[in-house]
């Protein structure tokens, strides 16, 4: 997954979203150690302070924790991970329903169409 940043929204927010997706998708598995701030900042081509702020947000969200010895690790709390995954899924669904509404389909029609395409 790359670091695409769009205009108009704070960079740290977008970095935190990207990191969150990496965690729930298992790219950074539960209990694993996250790369260092500098490393991540360099990978994303952003200021280390901005990356630091994004990582602090992950800690606030309970997705990561700082240990004095092991650096920053991904949470092993399955409930937190599942909640976050759900939350992101809901966002995607809302986005889908919204763009379908723009095309003139209501939620039921959109769901039916989704099922149809899947079959």
């Amino acid at each position, binding site marked *: 997954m790359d670091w695409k*940043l769009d*205009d*108009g*929204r*704070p*960079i*740290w*927010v977008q970095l935190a979203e990207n990191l969150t997706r990496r965690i729930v998708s298992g790219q950074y598995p539960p209990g694993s150690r996250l790369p260092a701030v*500098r490393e991540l*900042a*360099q990978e*994303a*081509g*952003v*200021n*280390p*302070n*901005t990356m630091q*702020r994004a990582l602090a947000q992950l800690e606030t969200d309970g997705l990561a924790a700082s240990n004095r010895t092991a650096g920053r690790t991904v949470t092993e709390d399955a409930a937190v991970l599942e909640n976050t995954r759900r939350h992101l899924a809901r966002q995607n669904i809302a986005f889908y329903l919204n763009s379908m509404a723009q095309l003139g389909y209501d939620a039921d029609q959109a769901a039916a169409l989704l099922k149809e395409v899947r079959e």
Partner: protein
Amino acid sequence: MNEIILCHGLTKTFGAVRALDNVELTLPRGRIVGLLGPNGSGKTTLIKLLCGLLQPTSGTVEIDGCAVGVHTKSVTSYLPDRMYFADWMRAGDLVDLFADFYRDFDRTKCTGMCAALGIHARDRIKTMSKGTKEKLQLALVMSRRAQLYLLDEPIAGVDPAARDFILNTILTNYNEDGTVLLSTHLISDIERVLDEAVFLKAGRVVRHESVDSIRETEGKSVDALFREIFRTQPMEGGAW
């Protein structure tokens, strides 16, 4: 002492032209700060005052708690907006020169960077492309362990790939409690690298804020805000 730069009422005039007009500016340590403004807004003048190449007409400048002088020059690493090396020199000569001149120069770091750039010690400056010269110069300047890096238009003359390389060099090589002040008008390229943006307009600081707080409050990128603030206005007619 948390500030690296403290400017107070800083004014510089060239004849009738007020290049800088009563600038109040405080910059903390450990930041990457963009000095943004259109041509002629005073970016280079401010940088030259900070490194002691110009004397203020009035007002004061302090770096690391001292007036500009021997101490401040020893902690400041300056990249001018044009090349100042003799073009008969070879890359290796410049590395020697910097090593002689600056106690905080890290030769290993510099030669490593040059190698990554494909610059050999025996390459003559005369034969280098404009982009290569800029990269060499940046490698030299960033190889000092300075507290303040003053970079005047570091990405102006190079292609987008070299630009990425230069930004990466800045990101990975500035020392953690050093501050980088870089001037540019190519904002979209550097926006994600910056902590803070200082907008200069006709010699005055019109805005000084963190990049993310600009994005948060304005709902647009710093580049978009820049275009809005500096939308070209018709000049007022001068008397001829």
